[in-house]
């Protein structure tokens, strides 16, 4: 135990001290140049360590993955586009893509709606009521996705008819006289996927609510009063006055939740492991890589996910630039 503490302390000292020494050395190197060149070179030199680290741990693996996606299962020879072709032609992967699309379309929108709803309604409560309501909605963010999955396991759990129902939903169903339903296995209309989305929504709603609540409070009261004087009802006030003015925040929340949804893995893995038609891309990638040991398929799946996320990232960077320009 003591040795671990000593090692940790040494690591911190070496890490911090080493970085200081590194930048001091880089500075010395920059000073070796004539002053004019120095000003031009210094920024690049200082960025160099970070850039090398990113190249090694981010860019190189990404490129390697793209290369592996054109290779076979054990990455020993190239197979061209056949990984992509086989995946896109297999019905199970098409189902996975469709599910992921469903998640992407439904969850961010639902999160924003719920966030807006809670933010607006909590605004109307007194200060203490508002605080406790917001805290309650925000609490699930503190739990890991696996923890959330475990909690909701007990909501969706199902026992055979005749035995006592442990799951909350089924206890209600049986109490009103029905037969217990195995919720997570109902893939008609992708109902089980929606039930899993509810879990992610439960976790993320707090995040959306906090940001949207701050934005709503930032809307100038004069505009609201002016609208009310003109005879607008509450609904119109909300939709025509408040929402357009918090557009920027809504988009930020949307994009953040969207990226989070595309990466969702734990919830589906823990609840169903992608069975019963609930499979999504990240779970499929994990299973292809670790259970099936098929590096080619796993790389191809991840490349497709990366390609799908790029437009969103481009949009987000552009939005960020626009906002910076507006400052």
């Amino acid at each position, binding site marked *: 135990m003591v040795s671990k503490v000593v090692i940790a302390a040494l690591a911190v000292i070496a890490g911090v001290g080493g970085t200081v020494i590194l930048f001091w050395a880089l500075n010395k190197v920059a000073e070796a140049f004539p002053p004019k060149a120095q000003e031009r070179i210094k920024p690049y030199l200082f960025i160099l360590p970070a850039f090398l680290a990113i*190249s090694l741990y981010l*860019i*190189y693996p990404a*490129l*390697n993955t793209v*290369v*592996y996606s054109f*290779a076979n*299962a*054990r*990455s*020993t*020879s*190239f197979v061209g586009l056949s990984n992509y072709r086989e995946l896109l032609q297999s019905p199970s992967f098409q189902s996975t893509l469709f599910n992921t699309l469903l998640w992407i379309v439904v969850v961010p929108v639902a999160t924003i709606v719920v966030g807006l709803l809670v933010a607006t309604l909590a605004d109307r409560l007194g200060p203490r009521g508002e605080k406790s309501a917001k805290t309650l909605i925000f609490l699930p963010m503190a739990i890991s996705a696996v923890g959330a999955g475990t909690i909701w396991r007990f909501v969706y759990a*199902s*026992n*055979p*008819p*005749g*035995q006592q129902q442990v799951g909350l939903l089924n206890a209600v169903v049986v109490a009103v006289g029905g037969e*217990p339903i*195995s919720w*997570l*296995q109902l*893939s008609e209309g992708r109902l089980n996927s929606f039930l899993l989305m509810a879990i992610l929504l439960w976790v993320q709603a707090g995040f959306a609510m906090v940001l949207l609540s701050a934005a709503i409070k930032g809307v100038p009261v004069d505009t609201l009063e002016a609208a009310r004087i003109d005879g607008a009802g509450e609904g119109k006030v909300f939709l025509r006055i408040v929402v357009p003015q918090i557009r920027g925040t809504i988009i930020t929340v949307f994009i953040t939740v969207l990226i989070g949804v595309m990466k969702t893995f734990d919830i589906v*893995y*823990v609840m*169903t*492991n992608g*069975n*019963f038609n609930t499979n999504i891309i990240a779970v499929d990638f994990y*299973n292809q890589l*670790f*259970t*099936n*040991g*098929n590096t080619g398929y796993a790389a191809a799946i991840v490349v497709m996910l990366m390609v799908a996320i790029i437009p969103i990232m481009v949009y987000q960077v552009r939005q960020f630039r626009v906002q910076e320009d507006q400052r």
Partner: protein
Amino acid sequence: MRLTRVARVGAIVALLSMATTACVSESGAGANGEAGGNDNTSDSIEIMYGFTGPGSDKFQASLADFAETEGIDIQFSPTPDFNSLINTRVQGNDLPDIAIFPQPGVMASIASTGALADLSEVVDMADLEENVVSGALAAGAVEGTQYAVPLMINVKSVVFYPKPAWESAGYEAPATLDELDTLTKDIAATGTTPWCLGLESGAATGWPATDWLENLLLAQQGVATYDQWVQHEIPFDDPVVIEAAGTMEELLLTEGHVNGGRSAIAANNFATAANPMFEEAPGCFMYRQGNFVAEEGGFPAEVVSDLDTRVGIFPMPGLTPEDKPVLGGGDLAALFSGDNEAAQKVLQFITADGFGDEWAQQSGFISPRSDFDPANYPNEVTAQIAQLAYDSTAFVFDGSDQMPGAVGSGSFWREMTAWVSGTQELPATLANIEASWPAS
């Protein structure tokens, strides 16, 4: 302006991608011939295995005294996600010294990379061939070379019944499959569902159904055909498999044959599915499962503490009374550090006569050696189950454990769940599994 920036970025990316030209890996990286992939020769070894909880504690206790006497420092690494982790460690060349595989299929694919050591010179093969249940020993061999030896076995083709209720109803253990069929129908005729069945097991949902199919195929066709099926020498949707599935359908999926109905099977947790058996009016009379379900976490606590009076067993029958095929599983110990004397000694110790006495007494351990003293088993039921393995005419390893991961831990489980819960027809199910078999 934008164009030059894009061009610059593009140039950097192109430069970096040239750095990855040596991009496909050579096959057999880390191969080291007979000596295994780990060259650790010290007395400090790491044993990695896939069972946690009380079983893990008992395993560690069973090695504690030996390690101390021999001066070996053992670092234990239990993990619930063994299959993923061992693959990661092999690929990352961070090998343990000894690994205990719950699935021979995984062991075989790692052996093919050359990372495991040949055990024929390490353990006393003559002794093992004579005394260890032959199917368990054979499961550790890959193309004639012995890469792993069994640490312990479990028996999966056991049918449990509630002893008091069974005897008062006057039922008798069937000696053939046909008799089992008749018994099923007789019990169903009295209005009670004869079988309990549960497939739910989290991410592994569906594996009990695969055990059923394997058991029936083994009983109906014998070891040779079973092995052909497992090794993919006959297609997965071969007529013999269809026949076995048909028997399964008749026994289990007919209306009134399973407690809770067909639609509840897939959501019923496998460990607790048999519990209706032990109620005043039994909800079912038979539960086919592995011996590990007769412990805490499975059967109700008051049953587990009084196993011999509450529970009876009979083996899943074969076609004729003399036929005693047993489907089982086990944990196989393999060696990565072929030159490590300490690790070799540990392997010799766990395969030798006398290992596991205390562990067996605490329950949860069945020795793969037929000369193991049955008095060590904590109750009659366990001793009887162990005897099934020793008396068997053929002990074969669980099929899905031997198949490649994509099938054995993937499509086989999933498709069987879909078929049993009624959302998919049998031909499509078997065809899907056949299609998912990786082309090697």
